[in-house]
């Protein structure tokens, strides 16, 4: 019953449309719109919740209390913060490239939104079950580099420019180990479909078969989301706020929330690739698959937050050296070993 609550309600909707004799193309379109609206709602609510969660987790780690004034347990704090930011003036610096400056915060939500369309939230719960899922993820995820660079360049601010240069260097370098670490999994499964990858983990999760790849993925994912110890792009104590220095009001809020959407995204991918996605651990199927999925994602998110509030920041040259001299060779070696293992044992 619980397991199929989302799938069956969608089926009920489909039946309803058939009953009122809606033309088929229109009905399909409506279903798709509903699915995407659900994803949009999921991301936005999660981004709001994650800001709150981060503040609570950081407070827990630092021995503080965290937000506890607005709403029960301070739950409405971020909602109110966003409402406040909406009401604020959007200041455009006189020397800024106005079009790009305004376009960047609008675009920043596009990549995460587009990627979530293919995420299987539970059994049979992907909005679009794409065969090239992982490839699509990699392609879309790299787009956010361009958008942050847009923000950094158009602000016409020196700190923003430094941050923009850093974002290009960092995200391009860390995409390499990120992609290479995924290849190990893809060799094992022989598919790029996210549901296929999850189903291949029915017996054993890939974290146990691909521990090196999983570690590389987690490190590269931290860098991809620009979080400590790789938060050079924002680097508050060095370059104020990097590309986002000049943004105020809603523009700032968009970048802020997009960061959390991206954290959610890499956690989702980690869950899918290495932690068995929506599969229940130990055969505990009495809880629905979507519950397990969200549960695992939140454990990943917590780990990311834990790292963020413990480590200091790495330096630019060390960051590049680490990616190209440590992570990439390691990932390539992992691919080689995986291929060798598959050739020896599985064929």
């Amino acid at each position, binding site marked *: 019953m619980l397991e199929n609550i989302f799938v069956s309600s969608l089926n009920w909707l489909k039946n309803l449309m058939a009953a009122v004799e809606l033309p088929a193309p229109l009905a399909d379109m409506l279903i798709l719109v509903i699915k995407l609206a659900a994803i949009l709602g999921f991301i936005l609510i999660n981004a709001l919740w994650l800001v709150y969660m981060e503040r609570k987790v950081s407070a827990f780690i630092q021995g503080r209390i965290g937000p506890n004034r607005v709403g029960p347990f301070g739950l409405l704090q971020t909602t109110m913060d966003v409402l406040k930011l909406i009401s604020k003036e959007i200041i455009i610096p006189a020397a800024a490239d106005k079009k790009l400056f305004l376009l960047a915060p609008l675009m920043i939500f596009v990549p995460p939104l587009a990627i979530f369309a293919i995420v299987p939230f539970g059994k049979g719960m992907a909005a679009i079950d794409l065969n090239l899922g992982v490839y699509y993820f990699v392609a879309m995820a790299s787009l956010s580099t361009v958008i942050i660079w847009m923000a950094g360049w158009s602000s016409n601010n020196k*700190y923003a420019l430094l941050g923009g240069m850093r974002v290009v260097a960092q995200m391009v370098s860390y995409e390499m180990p990120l992609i290479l670490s995924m290849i190990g999994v893809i060799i094992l499964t022989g598919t790029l479909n996210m549901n296929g990858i999850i189903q291949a983990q029915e017996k054993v999760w890939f974290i146990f078969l691909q521990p090196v790849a999983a570690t590389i993925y987690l490190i590269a994912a931290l860098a991809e989301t620009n979080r400590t110890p790789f938060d050079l792009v924002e680097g508050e*104590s060095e370059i104020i706020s990097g590309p986002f220095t000049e943004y105020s009001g809603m523009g700032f809020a968009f970048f802020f929330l997009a960061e959390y959407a991206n954290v959610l995204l890499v956690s989702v991918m980690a869950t899918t690739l290495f932690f068995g996605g929506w599969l229940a651990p130990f055969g505990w199927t009495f809880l629905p698959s979507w519950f397990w999925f969200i549960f695992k994602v939140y454990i990943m998110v917590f780990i990311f937050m834990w790292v963020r*509030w413990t480590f200091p*920041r790495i330096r630019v040259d060390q960051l590049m050296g680490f990616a190209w001299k440590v992570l990439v060779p390691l990932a390539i070696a992992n691919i080689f070993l995986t291929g060798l293992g598959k050739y020896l044992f599985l064929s």
Partner: protein
Amino acid sequence: MAVRQEEFVLNMGPQHPSTHGVFRIVLTLDGETVVKADPVPGYLHRGIEKLAEARTYTQVIPYTDRLDYLASMLMNWGYVQAVEKLMGIEVPLRAEYIRVIVGELARIASHLVATGAMASDLGGLTGFLYTFRDREEILDLFEMVCGSRLTASYMRIGGVAKDLPEGFVPKAKEFLKKFTLSLAEYNGLITGNEIFQRRTKNVGILSAEKAVDMSLSGPVLRASGVGHDLRKVRPYSIYPQFEFEVPLRTNGDCFDRYYLRVLEMAESVKIIEQALASLPEGPVMAKIPRIIKPPAGEVYTEIESSKGIMGVYIVSDGSPKPYRVHFRRPSFINLGYLAEMVRGWKVADVVAILGSLDIVLGEVDC
């Protein structure tokens, strides 16, 4: 296509999260590498030395709080010691003990800010909150002693304002016990962190010769391998009665400057423990005239403050107001090599180097 390269000027500060206040450095950058640095202090100048000329000797004490406001007790001490020397006042023994206790507590409080700020300058905000958790308890102790947490104004010419309150000694002992454990925690969270070490080791190296040439002092000097601590080499007050080491590091890089402060805090704990154990009874104020009128003449005394050698120079013309007061502020003098130290390093290292020098703008700009 021809690629044009040029350097650009980045104005860092006075409004910047990690210039420790309103310090300003004009950096000429080649990409992220510093080609030239131009420190511009002075944004917090209040003219304390000039103001002192229009105040009586006692009224100057609150102004010294505003020098190094992270260790105001030590600043008070430096000033009152100079006036006492000028007038030839003998301070009662109990007052000297109390001065050592609160002075060393202030040293810990100041080093805690330096330690935590170093961590947060490198992006690890949690370290900052951990050190401030403990600093808070020292400030609570100060509040017990004089009712004020930051700007103490506790010392007077001839002693201290009032005796230690009831319950201070057990509370201080309790704090010291807890604090030893906290030091291990900092070493786990900050000192031992791989990234922290990579960011600070061999960065911004300062040689012993250069440090001596520019008359740098305090932890910055001792991290370069020069064991010069006034409490040992030219003892004042009752420091010869206590057993403690002067920690020494030899590399002179950011890590040593940071770690030396952690080691110094452990030594300060030893001093306070000894002082609390052997605290004598007696008055806390010497017999001093109602109106403080030092004889005409001049005096210069120094103490080892948390940032280095804090010197006070007073010229008296025999009136109740000083003719001229000058403070030797270690933060300001320790900045002497900043421009040279940051040259060739990245922007991120500028923050680390500045953090490791541990400046307080109240003292730099006076």
